């Protein structure tokens, strides 16, 4: 990939690799992030998400491969970083400075107007605590300050690494809404999280990593379609579970017992047949329902991780 991508692509990588000693933190990663969308970056801890983000921000150099951010090569970060906001691996600020002073340091450094500081503190709900020292902040407040710092350049591309860590449910909701509103105004958001359900709700596209390798890149909906819906059947008496498994197996489907219910990988319209076969076998079902696959289920299915 020697030619820069067109303006519809915010991030593109080709064979991006980072090797530390004999360990590949990232191996041959190739993916694109469409401009103006919210793209989720998912993977278990240690899968290479932060390494990728650091390479995209010019903080670490790749061992091999190439990448473009906002049409510029990552080897020349000064060409694109003034248009990028980022929060990497949680917030990091000077404990003895106030939240406002911390933001002013970064505003000075980037040449952004100091007036943005007050505006951003208000935006992330820290207006009243802006003059308090950073070391007195709760984890949620630190996270909000990190998001405010990322918004300083009024970015075309916002890269957020686990932005909802430490936030309470209302904080998570606010961040989600903030990300959505930024995307509506044309900002591309590349957000990593281990909260897969969180990303499923807000991301139009996804990049999934496992052990340093990209295992999925594409639209969230495509991923959801890749998973067969499940039928969940709960017999009135738990002792009937084994008999129910026999019925499902005889019909050529697979199933697994989870707690006192049976999860069956079969077409949803087979539910009626199952109900009839169970009745004929003397089993009363207290519930039978269709379960739509969550992104998390799909993820674990693909990565092979036990939940």
């Amino acid at each position: 990939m020697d030619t820069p991508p067109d303006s519809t692509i915010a991030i593109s990588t080709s064979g991006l690799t980072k090797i530390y000693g004999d360990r590949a933190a990232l191996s041959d990663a190739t993916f694109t992030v469409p401009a103006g969308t919210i793209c989720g970056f998912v993977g278990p801890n240690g899968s290479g998400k932060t390494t990728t983000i650091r390479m995209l921000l010019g903080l670490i150099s790749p061992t091999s491969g190439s990448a473009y951010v906002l049409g510029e090569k990552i080897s020349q970060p000064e060409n694109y970083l003034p248009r990028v906001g980022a929060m990497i691996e949680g917030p990091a600020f000077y404990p003895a400075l106030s939240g406002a002073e911390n933001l002013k340091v970064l505003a000075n450094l980037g040449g952004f107007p100091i007036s943005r500081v007050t505006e951003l503190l208000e935006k992330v709900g820290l207006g009243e605590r802006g003059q308090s020292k950073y070391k007195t902040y709760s984890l949620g407040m630190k996270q909000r300050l990190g998001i405010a710092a990322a918004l300083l350049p009024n970015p075309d591309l916002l890269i957020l690494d686990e932005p909802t860590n430490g936030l309470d449910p209302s904080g998570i909701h606010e961040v989600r809404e903030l990300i959505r509103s930024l995307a509506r105004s044309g900002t591309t958001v590349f957000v990593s999280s281990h909260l897969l359900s969180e990303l499923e709700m807000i991301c139009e596209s996804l990049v999934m990593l496992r052990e340093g390798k990209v295992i999925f890149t594409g639209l969230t909906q495509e991923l959801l379609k890749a998973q067969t819906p499940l039928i969940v059947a709960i017999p009135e008496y738990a002792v009937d579970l084994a008999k129910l498994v026999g019925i499902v197996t005889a019909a050529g489907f697979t199933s697994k017992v989870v707690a006192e219910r049976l999860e069956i990988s079969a077409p949803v319209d087979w539910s009626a047949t199952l109900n009839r076969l169970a009745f004929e076998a003397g089993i009363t079902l207290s519930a039978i329902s269709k379960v739509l696959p969550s992104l998390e289920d799909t993820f674990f299915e693909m990565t092979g991780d036990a939940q």
Partner: protein
Amino acid sequence: MINVVIAELRKLRRPTLLLSTLLTVGLLSGLFTSLVFLRVGAKGGNGKRGEAITAAELSHATGFLYGFKLVGTFLGLVALCVFASQTAQEYTYGTLRNLLVRQPARMKVLAGKFISMKIFAAAMVIFAGTITISLSYALAGHAKVSTSLWSSGAAMHLLAQATLNIFIQTLSFGLFGMILGLLFRSPISAIAVGVIWTLILETILGAVISSTSKWLPGANFSNIGEGGSLLVSYKHSLAVTLCYLLLGSLIVSVLFKRRDVAN
């Protein structure tokens, strides 16, 4: 570059750092100047390493500079600690990544840091000079020292020379601290190594093999502050200091530019 300097000054002017540094410098300046003037004629001496400075010597044009010169080495140690911690803390706090995202030109960040700390060091030297000279005037009467020559043209020339030398000395120690900060990436390690080297190892080495003093960094930094000595000339110390600091700066600049920011 100016943006980096302003950003760095914002960090350096925080009350916890600025006030504690000024307090330390003020106390040391007051202590050394008081000892020089209040112990005139005392048995154990009133100068460096028990040297006896008489009232007649203090009445010379250089009289008001004894306290200032005595506190010089300690200003250097304060600068070593401040420069080392200000540099290494970027790694321990993880703030370096923020700095480099907002200013990707790494050499600009490094140069901006050095310039801002230079300003900080200059303020420290001027503050120490003000305290020591004011106190010298205040205590001159008590020590029966005449101040008539202290305001002469020659005295002003000597003041400018001493201020410049102490500034170079302070900056040399500070840059030494900055180099250690970049090498060790931990304020505690950098300060410990810097202080132990300067105060303990160099003293032991100098005592055991006296010829080493001519080539040790800390001894040469201090010698610049004193304007040279009978054993080691000012020019020699300046050249040795320049060699050490240029080499150190070159090594850490290459490391800083090329090293991955992975914390």
